[in-house]
């Protein structure tokens, strides 16, 4: 393939030499990239998993064990192994197997890009107990206050998401109001200077709770059972 082509160095080398040079360089480049991809594949997947795991335990205080579930119109199914990517509800339990709550995903369009969050839901008290931003491109210093503003985060210590009697819908939708105007437990006090971002959090939670909570309601007793010893540990 790369046999030397004997020739004196003329002003323009033959095309073959140019093609061979580029081909060789591209080949080695491809090899190097495949090698690095192979080496880093496992650590990258582990990082993603750890980030999600950390987020689950962040929004569910005191939880040390996790069980992944998928909940949809067909009911609640436990997912493990390779199917974990399809999970949309992560139940967190304390050391002695008591259910702390569920970590659920939500997303909405923010100021710059989609904001993805994970929030903690306590199905027994029917409140949101915390949230964590997984992905956001909000303006640094303004929109990213949704992650740092202490007054805003206080909204999520016990945000009411009570279901109605038939357990088919929320009694009151989660809604973001202007700063200082929160007077109901299902309202979120917005952030001045980060209106769009704080509204987006409200919208994300509203849509996600309206969809997932009625689906989860019939299974709360199943969820409250302590996780079996064969799985579910972090």
């Amino acid at each position, binding site marked *: 393939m790369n046999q030397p082509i004997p020739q004196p160095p003329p002003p*323009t*080398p033959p095309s073959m*030499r*140019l093609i061979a*040079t*580029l081909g060789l*360089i*591209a080949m080695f*480049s491809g090899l*190097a*990239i495949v090698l*690095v*991809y192979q*080496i*880093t594949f496992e*650590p*990258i997947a582990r*990082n*993603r998993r750890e*980030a999600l795991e950390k987020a689950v335990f962040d929004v569910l205080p005191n939880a040390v064990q996790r069980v992944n579930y998928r909940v949809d119109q067909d009911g609640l199914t436990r997912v493990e192994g390779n199917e974990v990517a399809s999970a949309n509800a992560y139940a967190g339990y304390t050391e002695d197997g008591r259910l702390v709550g569920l970590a659920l995903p939500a997303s909405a369009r923010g100021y710059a890009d989609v904001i993805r969050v994970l929030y903690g839901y306590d199905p027994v008290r029917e409140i949101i107990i915390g949230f964590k931003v997984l*992905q956001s*491109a909000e*303006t*640094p*210093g*303004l929109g990213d206050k949704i992650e740092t503003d202490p007054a805003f985060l206080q909204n999520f210590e016990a945000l009411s998401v009570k279901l109605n009697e038939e357990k088919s819908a929320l009694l009151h939708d989660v809604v973001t109001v202007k700063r200082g105007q929160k007077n109901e437990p299902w309202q979120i006090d917005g952030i001045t200077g980060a209106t769009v971002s704080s509204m987006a959090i409200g919208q994300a939670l509203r849509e996600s709770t309206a969809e997932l909570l009625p689906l989860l309601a019939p299974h709360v007793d199943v969820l409250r059972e302590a996780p079996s010893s064969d799985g579910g540990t972090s």
Partner: protein
Amino acid sequence: MMAPMTPATDKPDVATFQEGLWKDNPVFTMLLGLCPALAVSNTAINSLAMGLASTFVLLGSSTLISLLRHAIPKQVRIASYIIIIATFVTVVDYTIHAVSLELYNALGAFIQLIVVNCIILGRAEAYGSKYPPLKTLVNSLGMGVGFTMALLAVGGVREILGFGSFFGIPLFGSSFQPWAVFILPPGGFIVLSLWLFLFAWIKQRKEKVHAA
């Protein structure tokens, strides 16, 4: 824009390294690589990470290009350089992704954009293709350090004024009202222009002293 390559010898010396620090500083003198210098310099830590990633790509690609400088025909040199640079960037991209997801998210799309950083192709063309590997390595290291310093100079000022902190350590206590404009894109332009002004002024003064 490119200053004349002074040393005629192939042996690296202190001047080879220093070139990129001050006289030919990529950002402040040659005005190269301004895209990352403006875009990811909102905090000191982002600046440092971007500077180190660019330095690594610069070192690897220019040294390899210097090693291959007799094997690559002149007609396809730019295409070859770009492939080599893109390979190094991809390696850095995966490595940062594997080391820290947080850092990867913070640097975002800008790691991939190292490919088009003019400093790197500039070094390959102006230095790597002419000088032996060791000399190229030393010169590229100087350029990388100079670039990182420039990013830190911009990022440090922006973080101090825009967040009231340096490397994430709060400086002024809770009563400080941060100037949000400094972490927004306009702040990047303002701080960079002030640094450029300062450097131009110092240079002018020096010339006046020499002339006198």
